[in-house]
């Protein structure tokens, strides 16, 4: 597993999005096949943007409160935060450039 990706709990999550870096959060679960297919894409972004963006994965089974707070109704869902605010939400799996294009506008 890549060391550039963080797996925050609810408290760590709040600190993370309040930080000075944009944050990309992948809401996922073990049993979700498309989530597992998106995994390598998220890891790749985590490596490429390790200096500029924090990349986090939130397991919706382990962190149901976070999933409920962001009204996650379908996974994978990727939410991109900047200065604590949601910049973009992408539901489903997409190629890397869908996410990096958004990140590039805010870093």
């Amino acid at each position, binding site marked *: 597993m890549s060391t550039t990706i963080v797996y925050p709990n609810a408290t760590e999550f709040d600190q993370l999005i309040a930080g000075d870096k944009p944050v990309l959060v992948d809401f996922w*679960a073990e*049993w*979700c*096949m*498309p*989530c*597992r*297919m*998106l995994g*390598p*894409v998220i890891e790749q972004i985590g490596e490429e943007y390790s200096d500029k963006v924090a990349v986090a994965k939130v397991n*919706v*089974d382990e962190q149901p409160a976070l*999933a409920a707070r962001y*009204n*996650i*109704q*379908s*996974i994978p*869902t990727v939410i991109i935060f900047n200065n604590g605010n949601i910049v973009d939400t992408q*539901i*489903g*799996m*997409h*190629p*890397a*450039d*869908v996410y990096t294009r958004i990140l590039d506008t805010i870093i």
Partner: protein
Amino acid sequence: MGNRTDIAIIGGGPAGLSAAVNAIARGKSVQLMSAAGNNLEKSENVDNYLGFYKISGTELMNKFEEHAAALGVSAMKGRVSNIMPLGDHFLINFGGEISESTTVILAIGVAKARQIPGEADLLGRGVSYCATCDGMLYRGKKAAVWGMAQDAIEETNFLHGIGVDVTLIARGSRPSELKADIPFISGAVGEIIGEDRVAAVTVGQNTIEVDGVFILRSSIAPSSLVPGLETQDGYIKVTNRMETNIPGLFAAGDCTGTPLQISKATGEGLIAAQQAAKYIDAYQSKLL
């Protein structure tokens, strides 16, 4: 994850089988994945496929399958739900297992899927195409499954099993395989209602309040199958070499557009396989 195949071919109709035969001829490893049934099997008579005057669709299909089988290719039956391009290879969700391949040829035929009003707007906000993916998020909530695909029944039973208050909506009479305590409504979903998220679906004059609706069609629109795939009027956009906008991904047959004819499909299958083989050779020589 298993071994990586050179060419994964999605679809076991004329285009897919032609691609398989020609990929084998180029010495490539092939995985052929196919859902049950295709349009050719349904045609009573084929009178314009050269060399086989007045042959039935089933007979011609059998000949195609025998030809591929003689070369060691037979289709694995099942549904491909998603294909993820990862730059130098692809991940394929085939019946809940992930396969890997260097290239993919889509020979998926024509999807006759018509969208329901509200479906696109509420996708991911209560509308889902995959019960095993999103089902857990509806535990203790009300959901409907709508669809004629055989797996609609299995997925409804699955949702019921994990604690979703689920109703199956389908045309015709109650399927015998459906667990006895699951409500069944005979009919078709006319509209999906909701502002920010799904609130209800309509079936005829009735409105059924639900938190989510799972839509299970036998065919998936190409653009939902492969994220980022360019389509035009529902058909996959290809070059005259059967290349899509995604490197390593090719398409052949009815899914690339009219005329929806067998000789076009087999011809395109050949081109797609030869291009995929070339792509693999170029990729491998780059690695050396």
